[in-house]
């Protein structure tokens, strides 16, 4: 029976071994490249995490702008912080939710709704008397040159989530 046993020659043995080792090396090089190529697919689920629950129910939003404050986690180099964010949130006449950034486009102060008695129904910047209409558009003749930024927003289970602030072009 022993002569039926297949003999492996030295040459064959070396070939098998080299193929095996070479295969491992190729796999080791290809795997990170493949991972990088399909990276955007794997990322898509986590990018939604940029939206933050600002602790405001949709039914509590009225046509009068109200200020909401929340915090985001921010890692800037080695420095981790929880900077605060704010928004003025209201429903427009069509019932759409509007979330405006309160940062004045002039030099960055925080604007307030009806912050000045002589300018009702407007956003008012206390620093240099900048004014914006209710939809956040700057009023010509006042220092700001661009409208207030709007926040990306979505509603889930009746709770408002806000994302990044998007600046708008000047009026």
């Amino acid at each position, binding site marked *: 029976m022993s002569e039926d046993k297949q003999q492996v020659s030295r040459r064959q043995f070396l070939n098998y071994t080299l193929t095996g080792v070479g295969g491992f090396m190729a796999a080791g090089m290809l795997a990170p490249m493949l991972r990088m190529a399909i990276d955007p697919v794997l990322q898509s689920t986590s990018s939604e995490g940029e939206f933050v629950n600002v602790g405001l129910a949709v039914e509590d939003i009225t046509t009068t702008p109200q200020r909401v404050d929340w915090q985001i986690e921010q890692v800037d180099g080695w420095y981790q912080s929880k900077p605060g964010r704010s928004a003025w949130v209201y429903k427009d006449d069509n019932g759409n939710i509007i979330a405006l950034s309160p940062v004045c486009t002039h030099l960055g102060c925080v604007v307030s709704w009806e912050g000045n008695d002589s300018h009702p129904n407007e956003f008012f910047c*206390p620093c240099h008397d900048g004014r914006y209409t209710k939809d956040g558009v700057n009023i010509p003749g006042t220092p700001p040159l661009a409208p207030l930024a709007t926040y990306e927003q979505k509603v889930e289970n009746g709770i408002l989530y806000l994302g990044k602030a998007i600046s708008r072009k000047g009026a």
Partner: protein
Amino acid sequence: MQWIKKDMELYVGSKEYIDTAIIPILPFQMSQEGNLSKSTSKREILSIFATEIENELSGRLLLIPNYYYLEYGDKVEEMERLNKWTKEIQAQPFKHVFVLTFDSGWKRYEKDMSANLLWLPGFQAENPNSDELRQMIRGQVSDVVELIRSYW
């Protein structure tokens, strides 16, 4: 605006809009261990306070780097130094210079101070990042902002 490179570039470009400065003054001491936690929590909270005020009025207000003094040291001497700071700032020119403190001991020297003294009642908190404290600070900050605006 803060004393950082990015803000200072903006400041140089729009100097005519920025006429108010705030100097937070903070006590430092290590000799009385019993009071260490009080001293440090004052420092943390005053820093948060100053940053919040700056955040609200950043377009017209410059937050000066913290000024430290010895808590049990000679206040007359410190005040002379502080007045030099004020002079330097006012020369830029800044119309309004405020000194922010939790230390009521400065009240006695207010008349010799060339800046406006903004004394706030200090409070202690276990955790300066807690939500209650944040709410409390926010409430006080809006009052202080009103006060500063009354000078404009």
